[in-house]
């Protein structure tokens, strides 16, 4: 009983004494597998098959150390890379040039390049002493709008789309004068799917519909795990070799609505 009476006092004393101890998270972890940071290229290349020549681009950055990226001091964009795209079907080659517009630092374009539906392209990017990055992508077939009904009075519309098996994801946009409605569909089904939109007052009548088919690389990368949780392993979703990022393609159809 005497011990019990003294116990709260002892506990209190220990806690107060403990306050003097600094809270330290402990020693930094000991590496079990010694992994060194290897600086590499990190690209985002999109071959866009639409009616506008030169709309495809390759964006090139380099990876950085954890410490460096948070300082916001270093610019990760790469402006002196050699970027080539080769049509595997026709063997034609294009060299993309770095944009002269400072707003587009790190972007590489070729104003003559228009990707062909169904063709496969190989990307090669080299810069400085970084490993040369390679990747391939196949442009999907042009999205097909099979049929549609627009009821402006009821403020709704439905569209029958052919979801081809070479496009793994479709984005559909219904465009108005000042606004756009969008939705996303899972592709690769080779079926006709109906997409419905409805809208409120004030939108007016829809002017056009834009259908974008994504090939596999872009779909996979775009839906990849994007962990911002620290200290957690994750696959980065890269679809390129000897580096990071994605090289993919989209096929675009824009149809005016009567």
């Amino acid at each position, binding site marked *: 009983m005497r011990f*019990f009476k003294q116990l709260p006092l002892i506990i209190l004393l220990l806690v107060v004494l403990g306050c003097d101890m600094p809270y330290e998270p*402990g020693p930094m972890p000991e590496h079990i597998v010694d992994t060194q940071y290897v600086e590499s290229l990190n690209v985002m290349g*999109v071959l866009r098959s639409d009616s506008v020549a030169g709309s495809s681009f390759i964006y090139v950055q380099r990876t950085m150390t*954890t410490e460096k990226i948070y300082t916001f001091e270093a610019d990760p964009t790469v402006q002196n890379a050699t970027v080539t795209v080769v049509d595997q079907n026709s063997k034609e080659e294009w060299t993309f040039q770095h944009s002269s517009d400072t707003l*587009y630092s790190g972007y590489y374009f070729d104003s003559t390049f228009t990707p062909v539906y169904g063709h496969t392209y190989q990307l090669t990017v080299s810069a400085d002493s970084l490993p040369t990055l390679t990747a391939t992508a196949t442009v999907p077939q042009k999205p097909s709008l099979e049929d549609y009904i627009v009821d402006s009075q009821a403020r709704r519309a439905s569209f029958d789309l052919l979801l081809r098996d070479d496009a793994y994801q479709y984005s559909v946009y219904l465009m108005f004068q000042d606004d756009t409605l969008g939705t996303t569909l899972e592709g*690769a089904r080779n079926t006709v799917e109906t997409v419905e939109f409805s809208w409120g007052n004030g939108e007016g009548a829809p002017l056009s519909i834009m259908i974008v088919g994504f090939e596999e690389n872009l779909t996979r*990368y775009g839906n990849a795990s994007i962990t911002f949780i620290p200290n957690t392993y994750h696959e*980065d979703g890269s679809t390129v070799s000897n580096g990071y990022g994605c090289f993919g393609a989209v096929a675009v159809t824009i149809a005016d609505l009567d």
Partner: protein
Amino acid sequence: MKRFLLFFLLAVFTLPLFGYNVSGYVVDAETGESIIGVNVFINELGIGDATDLDGFFILRNVQPGEHVLTLSHIAYEDSTRRIHVVRQDLFLGNLALMPTHLSAQTVEVTGLKNSIIQKEVDIASFQVDPEVLTEVPQLNKDVFALLRYSPSVTIADPFSPQYYVRGSDPGENLIQLDGMTIYNPQHFLASHAIFNPYAIKNIEMLVGGFDAEYGGRNASILNIATREGNNRETHGEFRPSISGITGAVEFPVNPQTTAMISGRFLTDLMLRVIMGSPNVMMDFNATLLTRVGKTRLRFSGFYARDYMDYSADNIFVFFPDKLFEDIQEGFITNTNNRAYGVYTNTLLRPNLMLETHVYHSRSQVDNRTYFGYWAKDTTSALDIALDFNTRIENSISDNTVKANLKWYAFRHQTFKIGFEVNRLAFTHELGRSTERRNPFIYNTEFQAFFIQDQIALGPVLLNLGLRNSRTINRAKWQPEPRISMSLRLGNTTLKAAYGHYYQYLTSMDSKNDEFVQFLEYYTAIDQQKPINSVHHILGLEGKLGAKLDYSVSAYYKKLNRLYRSTYSNNWLTVSNGRVIEEGEGESYGMEVLVRGEIRRLSGWIGYTWSRGLRRYPSIMNNKTVIFDGDQPHNLKMVLMYKLTPDITASSTFQYTSGFPRTWETGQLMHYQYDPLHNSLGAFATSITPERNNVRYPPRLTCDIGWKKKLRSGFGYYLAEYLGGLDAYLNMTVRNLLFLHRDPAYYFYIPDYGYYGYDFEFFPSVSVGYTIKF
């Protein structure tokens, strides 16, 4: 296999038939509830048994004549009665024992009460009297918090309720409530088990080498049995708090029928009021037990629900307008679990028992998480953008029928044959988007039958079993031989076990996409070969004193086939099959456990040395990596000290190796493509080329608590006012001496370095009342 069957048949048919069987049930004289672990023996014949979960015992090979039957249990008064065995088996019906009512003793024996269960051939189990949950306040009355003090259990993320048993994955643990599988047994956000401690009668976890009767999971079987009710009068216990109420009540329905109803209804007021996030956690249990002749019929029902709608918008209102207008963050989660079942236990003959169980269990999860920001960078054509949306709707529905027949056959033989059929329906709607896609709906059926023979040959007890299992979509039966044996040498028992295990479902890994893996998302794997592991176990048990036991066991588990299942990247996989990757691994270790009483001190101390490894083709090209729950050294203690007849002081202590995590080697930008504007957004993410390449610092937790029976004061008068019988004050001091070291993550902060993120930075004290009536 042929040799195994030959040995099995020889064992069955070559042993002689002598003596008769004496059987019965042991119940509490005051409540009528069956008592587990009563030693029933005839001293002059050297024959004994211990009662099982239903209070049933059977003494084998009793010679005809007059004998004195002794019933002994540490929390009950010893009882003897004279029996007369003529030339037939004898069934004694219900034998009642009087509780000792020594308050000074009831807690002292807590650490030992259930360890006296003589599960002779059970080589690897962890049994705890649920009284520990209420006697040690720092366990928060949580079954999972208690399990973390088992030497066989490791955890990775301290905020997650998931646990690893002897190097296996969390999805390999079977959790059953009254024999019904519960698929999502934790409360969302709280990491607490959904089992009300006041409703629990017994907690038992088999951690390997289990009998052929058990299957469907390869690592562990956690059996939680609920109370049966009181056949004399209404009794109960409840604990009011500012966050809700917890309680249980048991009462007689008629002389043969008892019932128990329990529930918890909790809400986090801080979140609700200050952050405007509605949230609720609730669970309810109901049990009705009736005895009709030699049949015990039990109806069990269970329902648990969690709901939370959290939005950072409710915090942003405290900041200037437009400061956070381009940021959105929050989640909405709805989960519910339900299980209903009917269990029967019929003594067809004094040596023949039939058990049947029919139940339905269903778990549903609907979780939407979002975190995004958008900032227009006017200096370049690359906007800073993050659009993190996950929508997970996952459900599993299980209709199960199982039955077994136990035959106390010959002098040395106990046969058990049985079957189990699980009809399962899965629904997955998973992915990185809020858009509704095609739910993956899948039905299957798991089937299993088993035969088991327990043979007693003097000091040797041999358990031979064969379980066959399959899924209906893969017609091939998978044989799962199980062998275990024990050799009693005085006070020491040597044990060994070997077994094959197959599993046909797994849970998906959401660790990449949720801060804490709160929930299990189940998926069937019957399009692939089943998960397979082989257990090898050696053990030694004995006594260090009159009330002090020790056990040492070593194990090696060959994890021949594992699956790594992720719901990331499954825009493609919903249509093309789930991302399920086959891998393999192994785990091995040694555990030492000392438990019991020394004068006024009771509890247990355990130490474990273990390793666990994994190999998956997509993770570093099949390179061997340590697995997420690998913690080579574990020292764990739960100690209770009876200061006075009314006061119990307790201490929980853990010092373990840190868990492995993946250390980032660098950073890069992950891009988002906007096809409408043909533009890019990007955000920084980590480069993690190696998995589990670092180990966190050692983990240390040290909490103390005490429970005092009140004789005066506010709590006592409150109990008196409410008509209660007793009132208790519970007090807990956490993070004693700032010794807590258990960070979940390390964040990088510029100009500071890495910062450990932990919930318990400062010591905390909590106090509450418990009222019994």
